[in-house]
Structure formats: structure tokens, C-alpha cells
């Protein structure tokens, strides 16, 4: 486990997104589920270590995407921070408050949208969202609940029982519940699972709006494209271990490969030996040559390649470049880790 660390305070003159601390979630936790438990919360076999050493720092007002394959430990990590799972070792601090010693302060700051569509099926939307606000220590505020429901396009369903709502609507209700007490940190555990495209776009619009208002967002998603579109920073978790935390742009820049594809006039069977140094790959039955290069490098080698191609008498009719997506980077990272 990583020892608890005193996190440096960011200067208020730093970039706006990382500034205005002290609201800063510092996470350094391990969870060793050493007993069998069968229930609605967790279900781990004896001795199974759900999370290994995790040392992570989340800044105020950022969107942090936690990526990882199924069973990697994403939900366990979130559950520890929110108080649903007790860590066997380690410390988690939220805005400088320990999540166990000062749980009231940390939990009051956090809103959680769980992965499962768990809801009080026989309650009305209004009642269940108002109930959540009360649980988090806030007195009733009908105006606030009305705003949340309107923001999530739930206002006309406020008297409907949850059992009558579609899956997407229930997902919105879970978000409304999490926002009912005006949290400063919002955990979204697979928020767009089973949600249609329109609602997904609306949801991300809301998330961006929340981020702009200073709310810190920590999300897990299987739609890596979403993380690519939304997140400021990416964390990759695999087998209970945080294998990478990086600024999204820096990550894509650093680990992203760029490829140049040359569509040939005439297909070739083998790559001439004079082109060996470029490590080209033949594709599409010899009608394409693919050149992979480091876009960060001082020299990409493209000019050299084109010259060598001309010398070898290989002509091409089209050319295009592509950059690897976050998804490819993620798959590559996880594969390497295994």
C-alpha cells in the first residue's frame, strides 16, 4: 500500500481548472476483501484482493475518467471513496478530510451515481429525489429539486412511480438523486450504460455544465470514445492496479501512434529491400503500404520514405494519415499489463 501523502497545494494562480483548492480529493487506498460476503453490496471470495496499491490525486473541477476492463476494480475504488466498501488498508482523503475519521465532511461533498439501476420502485420521482437530499443532511428545498428535475428533463415525470419509467429515465433519476444535495464531487459509475444516443448527449452536456460550475467529475465508462471526448485526465486500472494516470492530450500524444497509408497504383507482392529500414507493412493484398511513425519525433522520416519509394519505382495514387484512438491506446496498455 502507498503511505498517506501530504499533497502539495496548488497555487490559486495556476490554471483555472487546477486552481482554487483546497477542494482536492487525494486517494491512496487498498482494499483487501478477506472475508466472504454475499449480499447486495459486494461479493468477493475469501482472500481476493480487489484493489492493490492505488495512489491517485484528483483535482478540483476536472473530469477524470477511470478506464479498465470488467472486474478491474473501478467500482470497488469508487465504493471505498464513497463509504460503501471498507478498505482493509490505506487512506483516502477528500478535500483534506479522511473518509473514515471525518466521513460526514467527505460524504456530504460527494454525489454517487451507481452502475446498477437501483431505485425505490414504488416511490415517485419527486419523493425519491427529495429523500436523497435529506439523507445527505440538507433540509427540503423544493426549488432545488425542481431545478434538478428540469435540468434532467424529468419534470413531467415528477409524480410517476419509478417502476413505470424506462431504463434511461431511471438512470436520469439516479443522477438527479446524486445532484439533489449539491455535491462538489460527482462519481458517475458507467452513467451511459443502456442509455440511448440522445440522452447520452444530453447527459454529457449536463456533465460539462457541472464541470464548468466547479464540480469535480470522476467517471467510469466502457465507451472509451466518451472518455476521449469528455475527460481532462485518464486513469487506467487493471487487475486492481492503477497502471497509468495521465493528462488525456499528453497520453494520446505520448502513446498514440500515427500511421501513413499509401494506396499503390499497382499491388506489390514483397516490399523492396531498399525500403527495409522504414519497417513498412503491406496491407490489402499488397495494394497498400502502411508506415508507422512517432508524431512527436523531430524527424518523422516521411520525406526520406517518399524519396526511397520514388527511387524504388513505387507509385501511389492516394495518401492518408491516421492517429490511434484512446481505445487503441487503452487496449494496448491493458494487454501489455497482462
Amino acid at each position: 500500500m502507498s503511505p498517506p501523502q501530504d499533497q502539495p497545494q496548488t497555487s490559486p494562480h495556476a490554471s483555472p481548472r487546477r486552481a482554487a483548492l483546497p477542494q482536492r480529493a487525494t486517494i491512496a487506498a487498498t482494499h483487501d476483501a478477506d472475508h466472504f460476503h454475499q449480499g447486495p453490496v459486494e461479493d468477493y471470495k475469501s482472500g481476493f484482493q480487489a484493489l492493490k496499491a492505488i495512489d491517485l490525486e484528483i483535482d478540483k473541477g476536472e473530469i477524470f475518467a477511470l478506464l479498465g476492463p470488467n472486474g478491474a476494480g473501478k467500482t470497488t475504488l469508487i465504493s471505498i471513496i464513497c463509504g460503501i466498501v471498507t478498505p482493509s488498508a490505506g487512506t483516502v482523503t477528500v478535500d483534506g478530510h479522511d473518509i473514515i475519521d471525518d466521513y460526514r465532511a467527505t460524504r456530504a461533498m460527494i454525489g454517487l451515481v451507481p452502475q446498477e439501476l437501483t431505485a425505490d420502485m414504488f416511490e415517485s420521482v419527486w419523493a425519491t429525489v427529495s429523500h436523497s437530499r435529506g439523507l445527505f443532511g440538507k433540509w427540503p428545498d423544493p426549488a432545488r429539486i425542481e431545478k434538478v428535475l428540469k435540468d434532467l428533463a424529468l419534470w413531467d415525470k415528477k409524480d410517476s412511480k419509478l417502476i413505470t419509467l424506462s431504463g434511461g429515465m431511471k438512470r436520469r433519476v439516479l443522477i438527479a438523486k446524486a445532484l439533489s444535495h449539491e455535491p462538489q464531487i460527482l462519481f458517475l459509475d458507467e452513467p451511459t450504460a443502456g442509455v440511448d444516443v440522445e440522452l447520452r448527449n444530453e447527459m454529457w452536456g449536463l456533465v460539462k455544465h457541472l464541470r464548468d460550475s466547479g464540480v469535480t467529475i470522476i467517471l467510469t465508462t466502457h465507451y472509451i470514445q466518451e472518455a476521449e471526448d469528455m475527460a481532462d485526465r485518464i486513469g487506467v486500472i487493471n487487475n486492481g492496479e492503477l497502471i497509468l494516470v495521465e493528462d488525456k492530450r499528453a497520453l494520446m500524444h505520448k502513446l498514440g501512434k500515427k500511421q501513413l497509408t499509401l494506396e499503390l497504383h499497382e499491388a506489390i507482392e514483397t516490399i523492396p529491400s531498399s525500403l527495409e529500414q522504414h519497417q513498412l507493412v503491406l496491407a490489402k493484398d499488397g495494394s497498400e503500404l502502411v508506415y508507422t511513425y512517432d508524431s512527436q519525433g523531430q524527424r518523422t522520416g516521411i520525406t526520406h520514405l517518399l524519396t526511397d519509394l520514388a527511387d524504388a519505382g513505387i507509385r501511389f495514387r492516394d495518401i492518408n494519415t491516421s492517429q490511434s484512438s484512446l481505445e487503441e491506446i487503452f487496449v494496448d496498455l491493458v494487454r501489455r499489463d497482462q
Partner: protein
Amino acid sequence: MNLPAILAIYKFEMARWGRTLLQSLVSPVIATSLYFVVFGAAIGSRINEIDGVPYGAFIVPGLIMLNLLTQSVANASFGIYFPRFTGTIYEQLSAPLSPFEIVAGYVGAAATKSIILGALILATATLFVELRIDHPVWMVFFLVLTAITFSLLGFVIGLWAEGFEQLQLVPLLIITPLTFLGGTFYSLSVLPPVWQTISLLNPVVYLVSAFRWSFFSTADVSVEISLAMIALFLVLCLGAVWWVFKTGYRLKS
């Protein structure tokens, strides 16, 4: 103290009760009325007075206690089991709530429901039999204390149960038999000596005895001993709840 949360849980539970009044209020009142008709009017008229109290009136405290115990356990156990079953318990666990606040909300609501039911059965009883309450303050005290104690027991059962069958197990197989054998319909003095001694192992005997004393000033067991036993049971239930939250048993992994 997170007062808004206690009130939120309390109101939420009371609202749930409000939606099922037929099952949770009307049904036990009708069932108890049938007891009054059968044991009070029909059979009771052929049974001699017990300790100077007509039989119809004699069974009133026991019947109230029977409902109080079963409904307290049922209300509190279902109240906490249901969010565990549906998974919505995540919200209580992630909220800035102390164990005391969670218990106060759930147990407070369950006890309130039972007390209202007990008062309603008492009012219904006056329609069938002539009643007197010698110690009204003590009567209310025992009513409230028993409702809280058994709601705590129900809360523990709701945390322990892993299915609806287990949820019903304790009320059906333990609480109801103990109540029927705890002097609800008879005085312990009518039993052979050996059974009188065995009956003293039944905690419900003390509850019924003390409660009946508050009505008619007659008791199978001295009121002081009953009071001590109820207090002991309360402490045991509180201890069980404390242990559950300390260890996270069936709540957290």
C-alpha cells in the same frame, strides 16, 4: 447530528406505511377484533374472571402486546431489508449518516407504526369489553419501550436476513409462539408449577405481565423484575445493532 437525514428516513418509512395501510393497520385490527369476538364475547363469557378481571378484558393487554411485537419486528425488518434487497442501501451507506441516525430513522418509524397500531387496537377493544387502565403513564411507557425494543430486534433481523423467507422466519417461528405461550390468553398461575418455571424463560412473559399490570394492577411476575428484563432485552438489541455497524456485518464488504 444529521437531523434532516433522520427525518428523511422517518418520513420515507411512514409514507411507505401509508401506502399499505390495508395490510399494516386494517388487517391486524380486524384480526384482533375477531379475537375479541371469539375469546371475549363467545368463549370468554363461559370463563371465570382471572384475578378479578373479566376474561374479555384480561386478554386485551396480551393481544395488544402480540400485535406490538409482531408488527414492530415486521415493520423494522422489512424497512431495512428492502433497500438491501433492491440495492438502494448504497445511498444510506454513502450518506453522511452515523449508525445512530440510521437506526433512529428506521427504528423510530417502525416503533411509531406499532404504537399507532397498539393505540388503535386498544380503542377497538373498548368497543367490545369494559376496560380500566390503573396506571396509564406506565401503560404508555411499556407500550413505547416494547415497541422500540422489538423494532430494534426487527432491524437486526432485517440486516441478518438473506431472503424474504428468513425475514419471516423469526416472527413466525419465534415471536408468535413465544407470545401465545407468554400469557397472552391466560395467567401463568393456571399452569402446573413446572410449566410456570419454564415459562419464566420466555421473555414475552415479562412484557405481557408488566403491560397487564399497568391495566389491572395484577401481574404474573413482579413489575420490577419485568422492567429489568425489558431493559436487559433493550440493551441486548442495542448491542446487536452496535456490533452490526461496527463490523459492517451484511452491510459492507
